[in-house]
């Protein structure tokens, strides 16, 4: 079925058109993004249960962007008054109050050209199996209860097993004098997590997630995810501390994605180029990885949790080849940063929600596949680790330092897994060394979209990343 576009948004189009017309009399550029996204969030464990109609992407509201004299301003609102004439006056009054402070402090504006407003009309309703707002919540809660009970019964040492899920039916409308874009789609994610103490009394976790562009039907995948937990927990309970050092590593698709995201995801967000905060700006056309290293970024790259048709500035979704056989080709860019850099936007202007500013943000960041099998890759390792289980990552676009905190490392010696597991693993290094060391890539590829990504320590948005198994070298601790 198609994910239907919001009736609420359809209903307010005449008002919004009027607001654009009125504000256009005072500003060089006016756009409005309006959102109406509904969904649910469920957490079920043996000791605690909750259901909510709110999750990180449910929202309803609008944001007006205006430009006058090279100065861009925004006004976000959740209430829509009856009179657009009065409302336009209110918006201008609020912005004028800020301009007064800027004048008082002698602040000058970063002069930016006026955004182009070429005519475009788009209406996209993406396919979904089911809709979150129509989901049989009774059946879902009962199924999750059973999953949680089974988790506790099959996972060694489990004190409890949490099954959680969220699903959102997103509708967005973008409007200017010449552009009228509407889209709706559904994304869903879920996870099973069990925890219990090891012999030292330290709490250990085992978790598995699923995600994708689609409705709550995707949550069927949690059954298979749960069955992986007993082995995960056994590994975590028996895990040893790693002996720090530089090792040959094989990253599973999740960790390959984490590297893609941290290394040349954040590293080539081109709003950072405008601020001269990214080393990548000096490396366009230069080698940053091995011949086996090709990386794509864009909402069109995978049918994931962030597979939209247009971004939050009304730019159509793209598929950018960031790294082509080791050569850095380009980055990703929001519309304002693109204007300032004199390039075309790539469809990566995203907001945490309607009330937040647009930044250049990632969508799907993915390494291309190679020609090796995982077995061949393991057989080629003298002493190293197969790394799996993303905990967190952090980049340093100015220096290309990278930090990844990883759940598990499976020891490989003389071409075979030894059965020894280490945990946790802190992988650190210099991005060109890490990517330059890629000497094997597997034929398969996965894209994962659980969790969220921040810019600095805020502005959390849905992203997805992935790739094949990759073999390289890194410092582990």
């Amino acid at each position, binding site marked *: 079925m198609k994910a239907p576009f919001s009736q609420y948004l359809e209903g307010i189009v005449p008002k919004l058109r009027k607001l654009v017309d009125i504000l256009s009399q005072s500003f060089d550029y006016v756009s409005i993004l309006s959102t109406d996204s509904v969904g649910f969030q469920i957490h079920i464990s043996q000791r605690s249960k909750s259901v909510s109609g709110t999750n990180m992407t449910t929202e309803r509201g609008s944001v007006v962007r205006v430009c006058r004299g090279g100065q861009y301003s925004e006004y976000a609102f959740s209430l829509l008054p009856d009179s657009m004439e009065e409302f336009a006056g209110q918006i201008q009054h609020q912005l004028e109050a800020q301009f007064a402070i800027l004048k008082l402090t002698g602040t*000058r504006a970063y002069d930016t050209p006026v955004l182009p407003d070429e005519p475009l009309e788009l209406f996209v309703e993406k396919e979904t199996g089911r809709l979150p707002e129509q989901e049989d919540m009774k059946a879902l809660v009962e199924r999750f209860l059973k999953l949680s009970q089974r988790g506790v019964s099959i996972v060694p040492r489990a004190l409890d097993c949490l099954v959680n899920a969220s699903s959102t039916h997103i509708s967005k409308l973008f409007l200017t004098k010449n552009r009228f874009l509407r889209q709706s789609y559904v994304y869903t994610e879920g996870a099973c997590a069990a925890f219990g103490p090891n012999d030292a009394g330290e*709490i250990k976790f085992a978790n598995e997630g699923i995600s994708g562009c689609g409705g709550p039907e995707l949550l069927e995948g949690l059954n298979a995810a749960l069955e992986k937990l007993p082995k995960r927990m056994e590994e975590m309970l028996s895990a040893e501390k790693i002996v720090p050092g530089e090792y040959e590593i094989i990253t599973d698709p999740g960790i390959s994605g984490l590297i893609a995201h941290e290394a040349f995801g954040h590293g080539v967000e081109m709003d950072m180029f405008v601020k001269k905060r990214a080393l990548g700006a000096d490396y366009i056309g230069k080698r940053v990885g091995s011949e086996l290293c090709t990386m794509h970024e864009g909402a069109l790259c995978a049918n994931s949790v962030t597979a939209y048709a247009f971004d939050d500035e009304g730019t159509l979704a793209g598929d950018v080849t960031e790294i082509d056989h080791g050569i850095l080709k380009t980055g990703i860019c929001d519309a304002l940063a693109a204007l300032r850099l004199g390039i075309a936007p790539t469809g990566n202007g995203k907001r945490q929600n309607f*009330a937040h500013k647009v930044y250049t943000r990632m969508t799907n960041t993915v390494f291309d596949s190679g020609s090796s099998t995982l077995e061949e890759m393991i057989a080629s390792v003298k002493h190293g680790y197969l790394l799996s289980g993303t905990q967190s990552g952090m*980049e340093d676009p100015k220096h290309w330092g990278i930090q990844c905190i990883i759940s598990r490392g499976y020891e490989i010696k003389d071409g075979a897994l030894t059965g020894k597991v280490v945990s946790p693993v802190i992988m650190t290094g210099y991005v060109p060394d890490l990517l330059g060391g890629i000497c094997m890539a597997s034929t398969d590829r996965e894209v994962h979209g659980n969790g969220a990504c921040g810019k600095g320590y805020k502005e959390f948005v849905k992203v997805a990343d992935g790739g094949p198994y990759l073999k390289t070298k890194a410092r582990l601790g």
Partner: protein
Amino acid sequence: MLKHIEAQIKALGCGVWELREESTRAWEFYFIRHALDQNRVSELNTIFVTLYRPLEDGMLGSASGEIFPTASEAEIQKALSDIYFQASLVKNPSYRLNDKPLVSPALQEVDSAAIAKDFISTMSQLRETETEDVNSYEIFIREITRHYRNSNGVDYTVRYPSSMIEVVVNARKGEHEIELYRNFQSGTCDGEKLRRDIEKALQYGKDRLVTEPTPMLNQFDVLFSTGDARSIYRYFAAKTMVDLIFQKVSDWTPGKPVAESVQGDRITLQAVSTLKNSSASYPFDEEGAVIRDRTLIRDGVVEALWGHRRFSQYLGLEDCSMVKNFVVKGGAHSEAELRQGDYLEVVEFSDFQVDPISGDIAGEIRLGYLHQNGQVRVVSSGSVSGQMAAAIPTMEFSSETEQYDTAVIPRVTKLKNLNVTGQE
């Protein structure tokens, strides 16, 4: 709107409920160098509803959701009806909502324009040089008004300011340029503190230009002297939270020491309702409870707990609340005394983390000062890792304290024998 929603809830036959309306007026300014990138205003209104229904066997169902302020009458009725139905699916042991009447304080005036002027003026007057300067910054000023009502007659309104400034500074030497990231949160703008903290960051930036690789130190004492140390103390706060204790993620209980055979400082951790210029200073929590000042851990022994109403009642505690502000009492030794001998002081991590559940400590070193054999070397790269359970018995912290927004913590904290990887 709240009264209208309340009437709709009663019409559903629901007798136990909570409503929370949050109105946020935000002023934001984004700068590239000192030129204005964008200015933004947000005027937002959100209404959160939680509906409860008694179920068989003494269980209590509950579900929650948001009512959009632009919702039509039909949408409101459907949303409430859905939430009430979902409440029948979620079976938790019964508990009672707060029922003690509260008297709202006089609503605090928040002058966003004055706060904005203070932030912008402070930033424009920083002492920058040709080689150390500000790259970019983002100013967020929020006036938050929260109105809470529940079916037991608890009804209060509070208003408070909550500000944040994110600053990126650069330092350069020839072609080599580095950046440091800072994120300061507060109630309003404390210009003097902000200036001091950013100028300190500029100094760190200068040092970052002359680093050498961190050597492989293996087991080494690590000194934390920045806001990163909050992660260490958040671990203690998390372990005393009823939510984690009930769910068996924490086994800390009143009367139990946080560690055996403590040879270092014994921690005293207090929860407080207000802290001067904290971004979250208010007398009542989001469930209608009075936030009382209390000592959670005294001299290394758990004394009291905090957390959500539901889990506190499951543990037989009536007087708990959610808490945002914490104070850690200073230790036995001065900062100067803790700076004796060999240690690695890390002032910049990529992302320092102490897992509140496992206690795992991890962070990549971006800037550190290695004090060894009477010499100081400026280092970067490598990582610090360890485990809180192992670190607590020998942990030491200074008698002097420092406030970082919602937390007052010792100015320096020393964790002994952490794993420090580096260049071999």
